[in-house]
């Protein structure tokens, strides 16, 4: 407890410097600004804005990126509620009741419920992060290469189990990502693999170019292919921002339940922002309606508050595996790992001891960022609403331009522009073929790490594969991965899972 306070005060001392406060603010503002735009999720937003943080000192860069991340999540819920268009998978359930509320002229109350619920959940999530990170780091130091490899297997399996859609296709996407991650110079032998004598490829595929192409361009093209009528344009008015006393009484328990669920599920490998939002909604739906309460699906405020709290708590706690183990649980965290590497910080358990300012400063800035979002968003909601009335035809050329400039400025090399073009086509193909792109990004980041740990583990065991089964922690992690697979593949759960995701999409 004493340590926790000490650590947090170090964190606040770092985060509260004028410069870092400013970057947290800019991050939240930019993140919300872009996150509000329909069809652009947090991954695309973070990828697009990542190059803007290169020139900053590492602490400021990560603080700004974290701000961008929850800013974009917040912006995504605004769009979900007002336009009936979920900007990201995890706000899919928010749409159901949130948009109904907006249609009834209670959009303001829905936004406030989402905002306040998220803020509360963010505070709890940050505390969880501060409390759980040190002990987890202790454990992580006991990990050898075999344990790390097994942990990555578990993380990758977890990520696909919690994702929607076909499991086997998601695993294929991971493997594809791993292979693409291997392009470039092999650190051990110095051999340039799969680089076709192109000098730029010997440094590996730029994960930013891949992320922007697949998430940014792929989605823009798919959006443009839809006829205009399907892109519902926001016209309603937002008035009466504050929820009534009755609303508060109803949403409070929902927020508490959502927060608890989100914090727990966010830690799991696979970082279930989507799953926790969905689970929170299901639980609310199962609880009995109070007399006079609006049924779910017709604008019940609990249906907004609970999933929003859950996905924000999950977003916060998903930093835990990234910061302590260096293993990203979702695609946004994969980008964060990439950003750390660019700043020459090797993500992993040593970050807490070697860069304590960065570690605790980032954690403290999360709380500050959450506070800023509430302050920023509730009064500024009028601005975001204005932004939503801008027709898509004005927006997408700007997005294409930001992607192109961003990717070029990464290395000041046009090669990255060709790369983003190729991956834009690939990303569109993935969408058409129903292949979820997020696991690809995870694989891309983890590819070299996985190879390195596998190689070291087998070098130490002299080529004996049983090392993964004889070391207890490694065995436990692999068993957990297997268990996850078995659970998902079990017929009864499989049909439930499919049913769940169908219901959610509908």
């Amino acid at each position: 407890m004493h340590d926790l306070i000490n650590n947090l005060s170090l964190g606040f001392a770092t985060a509260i410097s004028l410069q870092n406060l400013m970057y947290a603010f800019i991050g939240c503002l930019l993140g919300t600004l872009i996150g509000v735009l329909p069809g652009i999720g947090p991954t695309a937003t973070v990828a697009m804005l990542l190059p803007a943080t290169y020139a900053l000192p590492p602490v400021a860069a990560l603080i700004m990126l974290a701000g961008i991340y929850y800013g974009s999540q917040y912006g995504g819920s605004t769009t979900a509620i007002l336009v009936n268009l979920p900007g990201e998978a995890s706000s899919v359930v928010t749409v159901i009741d949130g948009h109904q509320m907006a249609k009834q002229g209670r959009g303001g109350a829905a936004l406030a419920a989402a905002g306040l619920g998220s803020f509360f959940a963010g505070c709890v999530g940050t505390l969880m992060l501060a409390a759980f990170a040190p002990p987890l780091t202790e454990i992580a130091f006991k990990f050898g290469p075999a344990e790390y490899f097994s942990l990555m297997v578990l993380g990758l399996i977890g990520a696909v189990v919690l994702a929607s859609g076909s499991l086997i296709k998601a695993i294929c996407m991971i493997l594809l990502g791993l292979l693409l991650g291997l392009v470039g110079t092999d650190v051990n032998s110095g051999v340039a693999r799969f680089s076709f004598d192109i000098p730029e490829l010997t440094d590996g595929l730029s994960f930013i170019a891949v992320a922007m192409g697949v998430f940014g361009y792929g989605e823009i093209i798919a959006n443009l292919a839809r006829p205009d009528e399907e892109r519902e344009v926001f016209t309603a008015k937002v008035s009466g921002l504050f929820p009534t006393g009755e609303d508060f009484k109803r949403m409070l328990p929902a927020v508490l339940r959502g927060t608890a669920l989100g914090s727990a599920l966010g830690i799991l490998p696979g970082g279930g922002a989507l799953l926790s939002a969905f689970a929170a909604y299901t639980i609310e739906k199962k609880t009995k309606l109070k007399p006079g309460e609006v049924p779910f699906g017709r604008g019940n405020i609990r249906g907004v508050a609970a999933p929003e709290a859950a996905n924000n708590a999950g977003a916060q706690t998903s930093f835990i595996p990234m910061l302590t183990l260096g293993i990203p649980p979702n695609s946004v965290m994969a980008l964060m790992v990439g950003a750390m590497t660019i700043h020459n910080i090797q993500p992993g358990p040593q970050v807490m001891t070697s860069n304590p300012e960065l570690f605790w400063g980032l954690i403290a800035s999360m709380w500050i960022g959450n506070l800023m979002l509430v302050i920023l968003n509730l009064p500024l909601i009028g601005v975001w609403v204005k932004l939503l009335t801008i027709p898509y035809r004005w927006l997408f050329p700007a997005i294409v331009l930001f992607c192109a400039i961003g990717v070029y400025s990464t290395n000041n090399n046009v090669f990255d522009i060709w790369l983003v073009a190729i991956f834009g086509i690939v990303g569109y193909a993935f969408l058409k073929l129903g292949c979820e792109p997020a696991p690809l990004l995870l694989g891309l980041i983890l590819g070299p790490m996985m190879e390195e740990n596998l190689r070291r583990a087998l070098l130490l065991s002299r080529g004996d594969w049983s090392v993964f089964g004889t070391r207890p922690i490694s065995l436990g992690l692999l068993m957990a991965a297997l268990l996850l697979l078995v659970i998902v593949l079990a017929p009864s759960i499989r049909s439930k899972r499919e049913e769940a995701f169908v219901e959610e999409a509908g």
Partner: protein
Amino acid sequence: MHVQIKSKKNLVAGLMFACVGAAFAIGATGYNVGSAARMGPGYFPLMIGVLLTLLGLVVVGGAIGVHADGDGDPIGRIAWKPLGLIIGANVLFGVLLAGVGSIGIPAMGLIVAVYALVIVSCMAGSGFRMKMALTLATVLAVGSYLTFVLGLNLQFQVWPTFITG
């Protein structure tokens, strides 16, 4: 009883996975594979490539069934126009920004590249109007000059080479 395609999407996706996996696996054999104890640069890509090929074939197998009902899960029309124009706008931006020395295209700089990208990508939307595209391009060109060149101090060639020399 005919063997029918249950899901065209999965059929194509599976074939894609299998082909890419096989390509990586074959490519990996060109490097030193080594043994488990002493892995060469080809070991891990070979392993993952083979795994991807096999799983891709499983996806293909699942997409073909004896009893097929439903619409066969078609891939749907490919939106060639937005695909071509968005990707084209991006490539054009790269060509104009830095030029292509090997085929003698001079660098035209950021401003020209922004105009080209915005106009071409605007054509991908419905109801293209030149006036609107030019307005947007002007706003974005001025905006990017102010934020990226003056504000963030990124290194861009702003004007064409033949003007600045």
